[in-house]
């Protein structure tokens, strides 16, 4: 077994607020290998974005405070590295794409300048990125970075890439700006890409293109991807694996086909039942009653228990451990066997 690219072990994160400590992440376990696209899904506030941001240490501390747990990136614990080394990982080894393409590009600089900056920063840690001889002068490095920027834009499917480098962000459409951000995230040849809702702000047709591009990138460069989304359809079409999060816990994880076709955890089932599909008849959708628990005083035991149709007293005693449903497919539910029986009826 190869060592996973990223391995999150029992990660705990709390946030200080006026009302007290909020237990935001409560023991996250996740392994990402090269070539895998992991989908992180869940409702808003379940901690999926914070999991992604934690990997590149972008959560401000304070208010955040990491408790137990570790984030191993190629064997090194990111939480224990000095900030200078984390900085070297960002961009070069860990690329990020954020939700809103309009606010993540500087409107005052040309696209090319912004891409070249990232390429030069990555090259300062690893000169091979630019593919120019050792000891090359500044001007030469800049020229090489610009050539690379043009190639990257071309690769993400922007026509006349070399000319578009001189455009400003406002001259690009939303989908094109998201492509620029993907190019920017990939320019340092990262090993791990974290995409935080990359298509939520886009139309379905553009979304389909971006997801295809993302899939192509994984097979071309053999990188690992964490795709954070709340859209189960996106996960089903793009990801190889999926982790379903609820209130700071991963409740179910496994290969996408397994989890979607034979969901084991009651929360995953409830999520799936809430998505309208071709077959669902008018008025037949099942919403999930109740609300997401307060993370300052989370319910003891399983955090889903207050909304769970199958909850029994034992559920409220202790946090359920993850149980293997099938190979690689895990779910954290003590009622699992019964839940499955009920589903088969």
């Amino acid at each position, binding site marked *: 077994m190869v060592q996973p690219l990223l391995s999150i072990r029992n990660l705990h994160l709390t946030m200080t607020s006026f009302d007290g400590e909020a237990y935001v992440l409560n023991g996250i376990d996740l392994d990402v290998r090269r070539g895998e696209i992991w989908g992180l899904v869940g409702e808003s506030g379940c901690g999926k974005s914070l999991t992604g941001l934690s990997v590149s240490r972008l959560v401000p501390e304070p208010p955040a405070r990491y408790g137990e747990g570790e984030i191993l990136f190629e064997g090194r614990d990111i939480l224990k590295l000095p900030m200078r080394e984390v900085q070297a990982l960002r961009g070069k080894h860990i690329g990020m794409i954020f939700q809103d393409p309009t606010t993540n590009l500087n409107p005052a600089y040309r696209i090319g300048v912004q891409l070249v900056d990232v390429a030069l920063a990555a090259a300062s840690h690893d000169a091979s990125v630019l593919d120019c001889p050792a000891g090359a002068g500044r001007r030469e490095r800049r020229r090489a970075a610009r050539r690379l920027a043009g190639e990257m834009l071309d690769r993400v499917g922007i026509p006349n890439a070399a000319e578009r480098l001189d455009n400003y962000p406002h001259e690009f459409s939303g989908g094109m700006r998201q492509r620029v951000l993907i190019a920017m995230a990939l320019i340092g040849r990262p090993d791990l890409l974290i995409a935080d809702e990359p298509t939520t702000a886009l139309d379905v047709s553009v979304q389909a293109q971006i997801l295809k591009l993302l899939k192509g990138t994984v097979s071309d460069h053999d990188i690992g991807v964490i795709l954070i989304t709340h859209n189960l359809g996106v996960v089903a079409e793009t990801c190889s694996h999926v982790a379903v999060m609820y209130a700071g816990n991963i409740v179910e994880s496994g290969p996408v086909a397994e989890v*979607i076709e034979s969901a084991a955890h009651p929360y995953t089932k409830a999520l799936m039942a809430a998505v309208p599909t071709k077959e669902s008849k008018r008025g037949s959708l099942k919403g999930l009653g109740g609300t997401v628990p307060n993370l300052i005083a989370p319910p003891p035991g399983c955090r889903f228990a207050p909304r769970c149709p199958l909850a029994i007293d034992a559920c409220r005693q202790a946090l359920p451990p993850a149980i293997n449903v099938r190979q690689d497919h895990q779910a954290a539910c003590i009622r699992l066997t019964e839940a499955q029986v009920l589903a088969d009826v």
Partner: protein
Amino acid sequence: MSEPILTIENLSKIYAPKRTIFGRTAEVHALKDVSLSVMKGESFGLVGESGSGKTTLTRSVLHLETPTAGRILFEGQDLAHLSPAELRRLRARVQIVFQDPYASLNPRMSVRDIVTEPMVVHQDTLRLSRKQQDDRAAELLSLVGLGPQHLARYPHEFSGGQRQRICIARALASGPDLLLLDEPTSALDVSVQAQVLNLLCDLQDRLGLTYFFISHDLSVVRYLCNRVALIYRGEIVEEGESDQIFDAPESGYARMLIGAMPQVKVRCDAV
């Protein structure tokens, strides 16, 4: 199906060029010769990508935009020929629910004030006393799944789904016949979206409302609407029964859009 409640005939809207510090902007043809009719009691879905003219069309129906050409008829009356007073009376019967429940409620108003405001505005049509208004507000809240105990609270005390319910209660306050729903669930999580969609179905069955539902989420439109129109760059490209459009789309654009819609099932090629 009975007679049309809303008819749009050859509607066009051109935004005139503007002079800005960067020079003159181009003329924008937001709507080109759009004709639609919405029947009483049905759910009509309007689907399009961003920039396709969905919002311009909605705003024109509310007469918040003056069309460049064409007519909008509400139960046979041309909106353009109504006096301001008549228009106000008509607006009691056409209400709207907006996309973002966080932005469309005034944080300084209590739920009671929010829900009774349309009754105060449409006082001359509804003629409700202060007491009746409060009673109706409580009644509306229970209709949308909240309760009278929520009347004195403020919007920040509610979750997104609850806020959208308050928006729906407000839209129902003046007793409308036609409800414009401008992406009412796109800011909500799927589990909450399902609750709001079920509420909309239930309200329609109980109150006999007509829905004009605007969305870019095709699966939601398919779930709720019996007729659908696809709009692309200001033009209606396809219109018909929703089953027919989703199962056998005729235009290339419709096929592309339906093909791009992510499905929650694993396709053979993905495994």
